[in-house]
């Protein structure tokens, strides 16, 4: 039997490894996606004062620290039994929208675009952000970096620290917004909206305008019929900061809708001996293996699933794009893995619009930043859930009467997608690797495109930056001896 090892999977945060097993005939027998690392925050957060966690858990992931900061902050509020002041809530969400803008821009242009703008099987040396810039022009490249920077700057301003945020304190936030700061952000937010629209235009022209790409998206080996999870507001519209978790099945009917603190009734995690990362699934359906379809417990939590799980977007422009997307892709739910890129852009627009809404809210410069905590009212348990860019993120804390952490449970965005990623890769491999032939570089890249779409983050479990992808394919015989190495360069 031959074994193809892709190690490490590059262009992803954290560590990942793909093992492709071929039969002697060269059919793909099985594919394993392994996460070789564990840090164990669940354990070592024990004994810490719960208010410190929002600063500790950002270190789960330096790419989406804001998400962990928010989930943790909300869980801590619950532990102390306090509601943040409405100004505090709005500041948090404002920060969070900026966080989404920066991340989604980065992913689309730096990580996804190369495959479409430059082309999935194009010269690897060109298949990166620099290649993208060549195609769309330097000023666009600079604009991408500028917009991302501005989003980072808003985070730094509100969060104190542009990466490992220190914004939240139980009951509210540590720092307010001055009028001139607010005015700046308002300008920036308008810029975001323009840029989001521009980005959708790019996607429209370059991707949708290209029959081949559209075909890959719709008919490529990139679709997986699984359930969709997402956070929705009281009108079932997409919301990232707050709301209820809604899951719709493969045909678009609501499977369940629950408030985050009930998550344990709906979600369970499975351990596989060959990966340090656990595999969540829908508890009520149960674990049926790495299989898709209506009866499988496997679900995904991604930009696409969020749109699938909601009835629409809460902001006007995004709502229009939402409808256009589903119209183009033939109605809800969409299972085309690559449509995630489109969904991500719709979310980018929403984030930008929401950003403007919040920053123009009169309360945003309010001085009442924090609700007093009454020691006697400490609840001792709290769940905090937000939508991370890479899926529904849940932090669950148990503390003693002084708010010292006794137990922690965390289900990270990408973890939700652990099983789907494995399956997508397998499916892509099976669809793309032709019997008996050694897979070309382009093929291998198209295999990686399968997980790239999830924008997986394996430090909170991966992500991607520019660069081409030389790949070593090891062909092994049954004894596991290396027969031949094909090296792509």
């Amino acid at each position, binding site marked *: 039997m031959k*074994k193809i090892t892709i*190690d490490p999977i*590059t*262009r992803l*945060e*954290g*560590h990942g490894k793909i093992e492709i*097993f071929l039969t002697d005939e060269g059919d793909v027998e*099985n594919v394993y996606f*392994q996460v*070789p*690392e*564990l*840090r*164990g925050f669940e*354990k*070592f957060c024990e*004994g810490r004062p719960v208010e*410190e966690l929002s*600063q*500790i858990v*950002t*270190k*789960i992931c*330096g790419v989406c*620290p804001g998400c962990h900061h928010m989930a943790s902050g909300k869980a801590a509020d619950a532990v102390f039994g306090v509601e943040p002041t409405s100004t505090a809530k709005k500041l948090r969400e404002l920060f969070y929208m900026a966080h989404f803008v920066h991340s989604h821009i980065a992913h689309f242009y730096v990580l996804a675009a190369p495959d479409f703008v430059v082309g999935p099987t194009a010269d690897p040396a060109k298949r990166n952000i620099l290649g993208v810039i060549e195609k769309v022009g330097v000023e666009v490249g600079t604009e991408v*970096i*500028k917009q991302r*920077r501005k989003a980072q700057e808003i985070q730094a301003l509100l*969060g*104190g*620290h542009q*990466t*490992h945020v*220190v*914004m939240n*304190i139980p*009951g509210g936030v540590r*720092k307010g917004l001055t009028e001139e700061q607010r005015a700046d952000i308002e300008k920036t937010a308008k810029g975001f909206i323009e840029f989001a629209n521009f980005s959708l235009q790019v996607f429209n022209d370059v991707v949708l305008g290209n029959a081949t790409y559209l075909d890959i998206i719709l008919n490529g080996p990139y679709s997986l019929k699984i359930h969709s999870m997402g956070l929705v507001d009281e009108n079932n519209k997409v919301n990232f900061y707050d709301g209820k978790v809604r899951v719709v099945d493969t045909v678009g009917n609501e499977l369940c809708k629950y408030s985050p603190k009930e998550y*344990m009734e709906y979600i*369970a995690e*499975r*351990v596989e*001996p*060959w990966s*340090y990362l656990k595999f969540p699934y829908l508890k009520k359906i149960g674990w049926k293996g790495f299989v898709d379809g209506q009866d499988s417990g496997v679900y995904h939590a991604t930009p696409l699933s969020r749109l699938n799980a909601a009835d629409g977007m809460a902001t006007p422009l995004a709502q229009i794009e939402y409808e256009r997307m589903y119209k183009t892709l033939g109605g809800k739910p969409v299972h085309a893995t690559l449509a995630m890129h489109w969904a991500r852009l719709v979310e980018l627009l929403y984030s930008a619009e929401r950003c403007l809404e919040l920053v123009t809210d009169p309360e945003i410069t309010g001085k009442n930043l924090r609700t007093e905590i009454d020691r006697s009212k400490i609840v001792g348990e709290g769940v905090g859930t937000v939508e991370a860019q890479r899926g529904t993120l849940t932090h669950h804390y148990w503390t003693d009467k002084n708010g*010292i952490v006794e137990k922690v*449970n965390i*289900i990270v965005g990408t973890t939700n997608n652990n099983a789907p990623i494995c399956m997508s890769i397998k499916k892509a491999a099976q669809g793309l690797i032709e019997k008996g032939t050694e897979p070309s570089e382009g093929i291998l890249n198209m295999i990686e495109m399968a997980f790239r779409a999830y924008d997986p983050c394996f*430090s*909170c479990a991966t*992500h991607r*930056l520019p*660069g*081409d*992808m030389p*790949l*070593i394919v090891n062909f*092994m015989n049954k004894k*596991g001896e290396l027969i031949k190495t094909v090296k792509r360069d």
Partner: protein
Amino acid sequence: MTTEKKEKPKLKMAVYWGAACGGCCVSILDVHEKLFDVVAAADLVFWPIGLDFKYKDIEDMPDGHIDLTLFNGAIRNSENKYIAMLLRQKSKIMVAYGSCAHMGGIPGLANFSTKEELFDRVYFETESTVNPDKILPEPNYKIPEGKLELPYFYNDVLPLNKVVCVDYYLPGCPPQTERLLEVFMAIVNGSELPSKKSVIGAYDKTQCDECERKKTDNKKIKKFFRPWEIEDDGETCFIEQGVICMGPATRGGCGVRCIKGNAPCRGCYGPPPDSPDPGAKMMSAIATMIDSNEDVEIDKIIEDVVDPAGTFYRFSAPDSIIRRKL
């Protein structure tokens, strides 16, 4: 006679992470527009987060092929350690980049519990986990199709210098991007570097030197407070408000970012020169400030220091004198 200007050879640079969060890599990205200058001055020959080179590529390089390696993340497992040693051998300058590589960082908090406790919690006890067969990840696992390997998970988290010789330390969680650029440019321009083993991209003086909050000699503490217990005026030294701040024992260079965000310093930039154990130094300082000579009262006051290990060793446990729970 014509003198033709020689093209300076581009710097070969590698970036790798051990047990890390990716924040260090993001801090490199955060050079923003300067990214173009960096790319112009250096070839990134290895950067898993960003570039598609495999371990094999490194193994094939001649020793000392890489000019500069920024190693971020701590040593948590056999893979981290192997790559660290591999990169050490292939690199002229090995920089421990960021708190985790420098001192163990946040992953180092795991040293307050054993590996077994960690696994039990993550794979058995966590409330949402269903694992009736008590399955644990295995370094070597037989599957029908063959064998799957995972790195060995070590008992404790180690800073980089515990497994390889480190030339420089560039502290911070993550390092302030300006500091990185200063160092990077210094190396590119071939300007003289400080003596080996020293910390670069940070100041010798600690946070207080830069901190704009009002400081007096009134460092007397009758009661310790947690940040949410006080009405922070945003102007007075945290310690003088009874809130523990690691600032005094922590190098400057970050731009007192947390304190500017009205959060007390937690020490990610590590100790100033010749301070063997920043946690112990800070414990000593804080305890000295306790404003009582009465046995019972002192106990009472210390009750409010709820988590000494996690507070004074938030980032430095694996690099401290007692580096893990015994």
